[in-house]
């Protein structure tokens, strides 16, 4: 679990120079993730595919630095890791238009949305998604100017060095600017807040003793070791 001071150790060379600690993410934003549900998205308990972005929060107890060990709870054979591009907010974003949305972005980093595998999206799965250390992020905030197009980045994940997952940010239902516009219509994002764009399905899975590395073109790589919980 990241102590508050740990946020300082994620380099950010552009304003606001520091993450705020608020991390939000979009689920089912990658086309493959919604497609994986198939017809079930139209059936109970959902009844209809989502209209607004499906958002979640990774609270501060989940935040972790690159290389910090993620603990697998007892009785859980493996964990799932959503590999996502994270947008770091630079300027307060309230009701931004899609055309100006990216001007509010300071830069990008990698967000690993770790969860205990579960099938349902009906209720916020806090017990599966908000465990201590379940949101490694980093390795650094890469300035917006250094990334030509956030909607054309390849994401790869390697388990112990073996390629396990490939996706592209070009396959989003809401690309970065559209997502920012739709989210800030009702909730303001502040400097240093992070919004994860969304992970592809199927997400890679890891077991105790394995290391997952997520790599995003031009944004860097994030290495995460997994071990069984000691308790």
């Amino acid at each position, binding site marked *: 679990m990241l102590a508050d001071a740990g946020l300082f150790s994620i380099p950010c060379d552009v304003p606001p120079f520091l993450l705020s600690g608020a991390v939000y993410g979009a689920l089912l934003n990658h086309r493959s993730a919604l497609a994986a549900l198939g017809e079930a998205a139209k059936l109970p308990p959902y009844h209809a595919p989502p209209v607004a972005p499906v958002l979640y*929060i990774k609270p*501060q107890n989940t935040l972790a630095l690159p290389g910090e060990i993620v603990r697998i709870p007892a009785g859980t054979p493996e964990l799932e890791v959503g590999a996502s591009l994270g947008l770091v907010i630079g300027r307060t974003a309230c009701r931004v238009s899609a055309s100006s949305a990216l001007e509010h972005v300071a830069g990008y980093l990698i967000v690993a949305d770790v969860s205990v595998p579960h099938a349902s999206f009906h209720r*916020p799965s*806090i017990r599966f998604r908000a*465990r*201590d250390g379940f949101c490694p992020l980093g390795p650094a905030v890469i300035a917006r100017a250094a990334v030509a197009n956030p909607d054309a980045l390849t994401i790869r994940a390697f388990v112990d060095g073996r390629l396990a997952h490939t996706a592209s940010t070009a396959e989003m239902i809401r690309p970065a600017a559209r997502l920012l516009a739709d989210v800030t219509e009702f*909730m303001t994002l502040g400097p240093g807040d992070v919004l994860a764009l969304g992970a592809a399905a199927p997400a890679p899975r890891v077991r105790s003793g394995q290391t997952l590395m997520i790599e995003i073109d031009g944004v860097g790589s994030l290495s995460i070791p997994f071990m069984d919980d000691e308790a």
Partner: protein
Amino acid sequence: MMRARVAFAGAIHEATPVRSGRPGDLAEPEELALADGRVVAGADVVWLPPFQAGTVIALGLNYADHAKELQFKRPDEPLVFLKGPGTLLGHRGMTRRPADAKFMHYECELAVIVGRTARRTPRSSALQHVAGYCIANDYAIRDYLENWYRPNLRVKNRDGGTVLGPWFVDAADVPDSGNLGLRTLVNGKLTQQGNTRDLIFDIPQLIEYLSSFMTLRPGDVILTGTPEGVVNVVPGDVVTCEIDGLGRLVNTIAADHEFGR
């Protein structure tokens, strides 16, 4: 002890009530004592949430009567959702009702503020980790409910939709948080009534459940859910949430035009 965080004359202050002297008076005191010795009128300050909130955890359907009111069965496991920092608002603030909404309602809730860090804390010692309590009004706009991560953030994490205050009341001054009356009044008319003794998952159970998978830290806050009696509110309505011994939390519903929309 009960204390507020207020903005006054260029700074943020801790403030304590100067009592009116009327017995059982729940009303906002006319005067506040700032820590620096000044005594100021309650109407002259801006009331902020009474503590610096960390993770904001909220409960859905945690009163049997409210679950029934919404036609849900009693949950087997606490229905927990999270909120971000942008949704928090202090006493005497304004909460916007979008023009297209048909059903926006308040939710009067007991907020439990974590003191000592709690990790895998059994219910038997859970209350030792509580620093204090305040009133929460956790607004919802039901028009935006979708069955994905329900209640979704568009319903429950709106700017200014989670009101906290007016006071942070020390746990030591709340002898039995499991038996507190809650009431909501809309424009002075009683619309919601309940008692924390009817919580499905009580405070020790919630701390045990949450701390089994997430470390609760000082300043984290648990909004424990609302009883039955939620009604629609419209711009101009004054919504007052009361909890025994914790005071009265006042909020006004505002229209889009007041927010430049």
